[in-house]
């Protein structure tokens, strides 16, 4: 038997070598068919528009992604070099035929009988991946972690016959910048200005779920896409040729989501997914784009995070069960506290206690043996109760991609101190506290580069405010969750000293405090803020102050929300008191009318205004 196999193998080897198309013919055919201009070829090379003057170029930065020295700029040179490389001599595993499997596969559709090799290492890998379908995975944001607000995207490669019992075993392809544990500021600067190189990586889905769902407490949404098996295969073959190759990384426009779109482009380049984003790329926007394409979304699945599961159990538990859980979470040997509960309730109490204890252990970064012993005791306790089902939270009514678009522009008019005003706002990203809520985290606000212009009667338009960033995180407290609520703002605003005197001042403020859920959809909060203002209108050119801020955010329904804010500030010279009320009515998720009215007494001058704004949300 072995001899037969051996002879067969030898024959096959020699056969493939002698039947290959001669090199010059292969190259000529490629030129003749103008393959280098084909969108699929450009997708395989990750070519995309760059700054208008620079022309089209590849996003790959590793020189060994290219076979031609000009590969980054010249798709034609790269095509010829690729074909020629297949004819080279060389060691098996690192031979171009075995590395550039995606290119070879696609080229063979037009240029028959290209040289082939055994490529065992690649075959082993492909067998393990076992591709049939593609699901786009979206870890959404988590409350109190605005860094996660924009979300993240990566893909999972689904296997034949996959179901809810085997999803975890599939492999994923992800894109991330390779960092070296720098401090947060260096990290931010390098990330924004391209100081990092990004790489694609492959890992089992269960690893991702542990990281995002269990450790980072992020809900995960799985979007099953309608790519054909052949399209998926080409994507996976291409993924193999991305192994260890560095690509660009720019936080705003060439980030993880951009490069995942680049991967999807290979499956079906005519969708031109990454080309739909000419400016910046927000992960949730990429999901919106994909979902908007006819027939591309097959199905969506919600995977609640550890915190969401915990919160759901808290909601299901009455006072008694909560009491028992809290006791058990603190001291697992307090088994007697379970005695008064029915078996079903005992299971819920232990489940809640265990999940809460785990949540705390992770949050407090407590690696101690005592906490681990307690956790183990709780699991042992639970294992003695059979037949009790664990409840999972239902999916939220809106998916993240069903939320409002991220760019906002508004036109408003009203009155300010007896003068008529027109007010214009432009905000590139992302979500204000009282904006249309579905798809966003309640209590989380992120504003980037918000620009406000105001025109008073017949006078000219002046800069009213500019907010570089404004981040607010209101996390309601209860018996189980007691995180701090906070906000930070780096901005500038117009300060009015009298009817005709005003100046523009830099405004930095930050506050910490607590919030409570007063009733479903209604948050109340109280923070203590510190503020620093810089402007030439102040006697000493600056002002510093501190004071409380109280507010209520009420979502009466999806279409109606109100916000009331009261601020009191004591500056080193002077004081300020402001009360502001705003009501938003949404015609649909992307169109809203907002009524705003406020009174601001600052440095002995009282300014009152009332406006009606028309807000439009659209994609970047």
């Amino acid at each position, binding site marked *: 038997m*072995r001899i037969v196999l*051996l002879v067969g*193998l*030898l024959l096959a080897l020699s056969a493939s070598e002698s039947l290959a198309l001669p090199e010059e013919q292969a190259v000529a055919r490629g030129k003749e068919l103008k393959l280098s201009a084909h969108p699929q070829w450009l997708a395989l090379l990750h070519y995309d528009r760059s700054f208008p003057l620079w022309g089209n170029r590849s996003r790959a930065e590793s020189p060994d992604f290219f076979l031609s020295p000009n590969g980054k700029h010249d798709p034609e040179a790269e095509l010829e070099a690729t074909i020629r490389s297949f004819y080279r001599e060389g060691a098996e595993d690192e031979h171009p035929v075995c590395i550039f499997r995606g290119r070879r596969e696609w080229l063979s559709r037009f240029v028959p009988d290209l040289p082939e090799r055994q490529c065992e*290492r690649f075959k*082993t*890998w492909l*067998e*393990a991946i076992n591709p049939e379908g593609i699901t786009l995975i979206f870890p959404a944001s988590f409350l*109190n972690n*605005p*860094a996660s607000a924009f979300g*993240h995207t990566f893909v999972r490669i689904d296997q034949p016959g996959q179901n*809810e*019992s*085997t*999803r975890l*075993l599939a492999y994923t392809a992800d894109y*991330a*910048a*390779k*960092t*070296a*544990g720098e401090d*947060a*500021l260096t*990290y*931010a600067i390098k990330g*924004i200005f391209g100081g990092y190189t990004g790489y694609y*990586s*492959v*890992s*089992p889905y*269960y690893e991702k779920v542990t990281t995002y769902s*269990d*450790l*980072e407490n992020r809900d995960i949404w799985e979007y099953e896409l309608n790519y054909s098996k052949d399209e998926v295969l080409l994507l996976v073959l291409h993924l193999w040729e991305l*192994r*260890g190759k560095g690509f660009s*990384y720019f*936080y705003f426009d060439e980030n*993880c989501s951009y490069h995942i779109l680049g991967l999807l482009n290979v499956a079906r380049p005519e969708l031109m997914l990454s080309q739909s984003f000419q400016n910046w790329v927000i992960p949730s926007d990429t999901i919106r784009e994909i979902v908007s394409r006819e027939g591309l979304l097959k199905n969506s699945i919600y995977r609640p995070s550890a915190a969401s599961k915990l919160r759901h159990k808290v909601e299901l538990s009455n006072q008694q069960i909560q009491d028992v859980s809290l006791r058990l979470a603190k001291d697992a040997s307090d088994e007697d506290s379970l005695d008064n509960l029915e078996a079903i309730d005992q299971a819920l109490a232990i*489940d809640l206690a*265990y999940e809460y204890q785990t949540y705390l*252990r*992770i949050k407090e*970064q407590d*690696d101690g043996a005592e906490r*681990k012993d307690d*956790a*183990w005791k709780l*699991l*042992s306790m*639970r*294992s003695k109760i*059979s037949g*009790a089902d*664990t409840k999972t939270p239902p999916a939220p009514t809106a998916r993240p991609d069903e939320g409002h678009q991220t760019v906002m522009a508004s036109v408003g008019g009203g009155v300010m101190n007896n003068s008529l005003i027109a007010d214009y706002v432009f905000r590139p990203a992302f979500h204000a506290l009282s904006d249309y809520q579905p798809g966003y985290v309640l209590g989380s606000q992120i504003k980037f580069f918000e620009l406000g212009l105001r025109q008073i009667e017949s006078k000219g338009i002046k800069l009213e405010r500019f907010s570089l960033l404004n*981040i607010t995180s209101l996390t309601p407290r209860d018996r189980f969750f007691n995180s701090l609520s906070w906000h*930070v703002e780096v901005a500038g605003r117009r300060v009015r000293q009298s009817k005709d005197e005003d100046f523009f001042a830099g405004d930095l403020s930050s506050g910490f405090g607590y919030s409570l859920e007063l009733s479903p959809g209604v948050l109340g909060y109280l923070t203590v803020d510190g503020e620093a203002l810089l402007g030439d209108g102040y006697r000493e050119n600056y002002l510093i102050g501190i004071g409380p801020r109280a507010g209520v955010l009420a979502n009466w329904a999806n279409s109606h929300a109100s916000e009331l804010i009261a601020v009191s500030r004591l500056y080193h010279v002077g004081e300020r008191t402001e009360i502001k009320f705003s009501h938003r009515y949404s015609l649909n998720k992307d169109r809203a009318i907002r009524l705003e009215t406020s009174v601001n007494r600052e440095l002995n001058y009282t300014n009152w205004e009332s406006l009606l704004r028309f807000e439009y949300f659209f994609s970047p």
Partner: protein
Amino acid sequence: MKKILTVLAISLSIPAVSTADNVGGCGWGSKLFDGQKGIFPQVLAVTTNGTSGNQTFGITSGTSGCSQDGVVKSTWKTAAFVDGNMNRLALDISRGQGESLASLKTLLGVSASDSAVFDNTLQSQFSKIFTNSSVSSNSVLEGLKEVLASNPALAKYSVNL
């Protein structure tokens, strides 16, 4: 000539896969409740998702020869899964239900008719599998093997571990 010799060498030396190799062979050895330190939320880390994580896809071989290029070698799949999912498996087994438990059943080839017995048996034998709060994945695999072997209906699955 060189090619023929290489081919000969490969074809004559295909190793036999021993199931005993799965236990203790790869030596990842993670412990229960390990690695749960979590990621501290950062205000300024707006460029998150740039994880400095393992480049599990590079040109070089993966950890201890049990995975390569980001994928786990098929003979190690179950061991790797248990090693990478200790916490979730412990939770699911203590409850007698869950996705990680279902995935384990898939890896072991448990039939639909044996599924309920599998869940109940593992749940009731929880402390034989997860013996203490810092049990290693190797012990868990051995414990699982013993529990399955000592149950007539499930003994046939113990060889897949």
